[in-house]
């Protein structure tokens, strides 16, 4: 029995503009499109004339699901947006809710969130560069980078209990403080990372094959990048020093010393190099933050969102009721709306949330950089070779979880 299966998409074009044109379909089940993106391309020989990019294969109704859970229960869901740097999602979401509630987090929490955001950014950039290089056949560089990423994952598992999706942020604080010896191991990993990224620089930077595949491929100008909504490393690779950590400082970024690396041409090579330099800057920030950490509470003392200590829940009625109300009704967020954005690993990660009061959101909308980038990625694919789709797409770092939500 084989009924014809309905096509989930309707391509923008099904015949070419010129007699010799060929239409090919790439993805979604293709490793270079990360398994979720489908590209319908018109080819003239090996040259890509135009492309029609489709997403949605990983859509799982994130925003709908958010409207029937309490504010706290959403934290595991936001983890699964950008699963390469899940902690940044946690903190961006928590910050949005805290803004609505008028909560100011404690200094230790602020520094720790900043430190972990940068740590996640390193993991995300390592993943992106490693995957992009592997797609070009650079297995050694891939192994160097994912080795470090795995050290980071294990190290984060020691802190949060999970390797990839941590559920570690809390509204008004964090799940727990860092365990003993954690910061010492952090320094060791960063030192080893410096060695390994140095080797990758040596292997790749002046490698003829790598330069031929990436230099002047997928070029984007600053004006084009802004017109098509690109943010993050892609916008910076065009030479615009736009970074929310500098432009609208949040968390502890105003107190840190760091640079915003930019590219010259906005091509694949620049996107690789901007990410490599950002890893260095993030490591520099983490070292500063580790020195700045002062002892103190990690959660605000606010009964609207912070859970009481367990031994009090078992011994006094007020704490028991408080715990019960927080679990059953959720944190009480006053009515209002807020758009709050942080610099995610891929660009501006914004949460637009609307509350009508009470423990359940009326609306949670995520402005995810990957989705916006997919709207403009055809500018980087059209006019280049078919084989250039692989390195260009790799350098965009599309993350299915946040693109399709």
């Amino acid at each position, binding site marked *: 029995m084989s009924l014809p299966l309905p096509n989930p998409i309707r391509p923008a074009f099904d015949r070419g503009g010129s007699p010799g044109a060929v239409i090919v379909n790439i993805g979604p089940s293709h490793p270079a499109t990360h398994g979720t993106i489908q590209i319908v391309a018109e080819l003239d020989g090996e040259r890509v004339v135009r492309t029609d990019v489709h997403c949605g294969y990983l*859509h799982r109704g994130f925003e709908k699901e958010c409207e029937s859970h309490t504010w706290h229960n959403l934290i595991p869901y936001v983890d699964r947006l950008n699963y390469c740097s899940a902690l940044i999602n946690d903190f961006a979401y928590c910050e949005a809710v805290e803004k609505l509630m008028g909560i100011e987090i404690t200094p230790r929490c602020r520094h720790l969130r900043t430190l972990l955001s940068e740590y996640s950014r390193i993991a995300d950039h390592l993943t992106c560069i490693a995957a992009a290089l592997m797609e070009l056949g650079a297995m050694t560089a891939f192994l160097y980078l994912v080795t470090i990423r795995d050290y980071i994952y294990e190290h984060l598992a020691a802190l949060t209990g999970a390797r990839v999706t941590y559920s570690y942020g809390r509204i008004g604080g964090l799940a727990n403080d860092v365990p003993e010896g954690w910061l010492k191991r952090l320094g060791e990993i960063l030192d080893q990372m410096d060695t390994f990224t140095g080797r990758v620089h040596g292997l790749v930077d002046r490698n003829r094959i790598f330069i031929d595949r990436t230099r002047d491929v997928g070029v984007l100008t600053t004006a084009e990048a802004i017109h098509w909504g690109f943010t993050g490393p892609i916008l910076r690779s065009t030479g615009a020093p736009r970074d929310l950590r500098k432009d609208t400082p949040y968390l502890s970024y105003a107190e840190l010393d760091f640079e915003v690396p930019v590219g010259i041409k906005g091509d694949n090579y620049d996107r690789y190099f901007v990410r490599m330099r950002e890893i260095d800057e993030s490591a520099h920030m983490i070292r500063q933050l580790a020195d700045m950490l002062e002892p103190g509470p990690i959660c605000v003392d606010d009964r609207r969102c912070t859970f009481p200590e367990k031994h009090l829940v078992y011994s006094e009625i007020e704490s028991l009721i408080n715990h019960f109300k927080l679990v059953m009704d959720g944190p009480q967020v006053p009515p209002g709306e807020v758009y709050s954005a942080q610099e995610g690993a891929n660009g501006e990660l914004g949460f637009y949330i609307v509350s009508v009061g009470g423990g359940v959101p009326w609306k949670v909308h995520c402005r995810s950089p990957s989705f916006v980038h997919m709207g403009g990625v055809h500018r980087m694919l059209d006019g280049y070779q078919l084989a250039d789709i692989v390195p260009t797409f790799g350098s965009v770092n599309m993350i299915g979880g946040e693109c399709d939500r």
Partner: protein
Amino acid sequence: MAHGTLSLLIEPARLLEVVRALKDRFGFDMFLDVTAVDWPQRQPRFDVVWHFYSTRERVRVRLKARVPEADPAADSLTGLYGSARFMERECHDMYGIAFRGNDDLRPILLYEGFVGHPLRKDYPKQKEQPLVPYRTNEAAK
């Protein structure tokens, strides 16, 4: 002003005029986001919400316009910002807001043939409409 963002409620008919002024006179060169909020008990039912960012002044602005359920439509900003193309498609998917002037409102996160708009409050969360029918025990034999 709310939580550090200027929020403007405008007439839907004046959208293009306001956005042109924002872009040309006030330097809001980046289109961040468009979405909608459903208020089933209210007339008009939907808020359409836009966010813009100025890379020069480093501030955001929010525009809101109320559109009725009978004619859920707003002008498209694709002529001013390329990035509006995908985001308007998503908003059309989820809330059924028609963007006049966007010639490509094909489903984007949903699939061809999907009936309804899932982020409207009257769309049941548990409703299923699989593109490929579930396999029954009979078919598996």
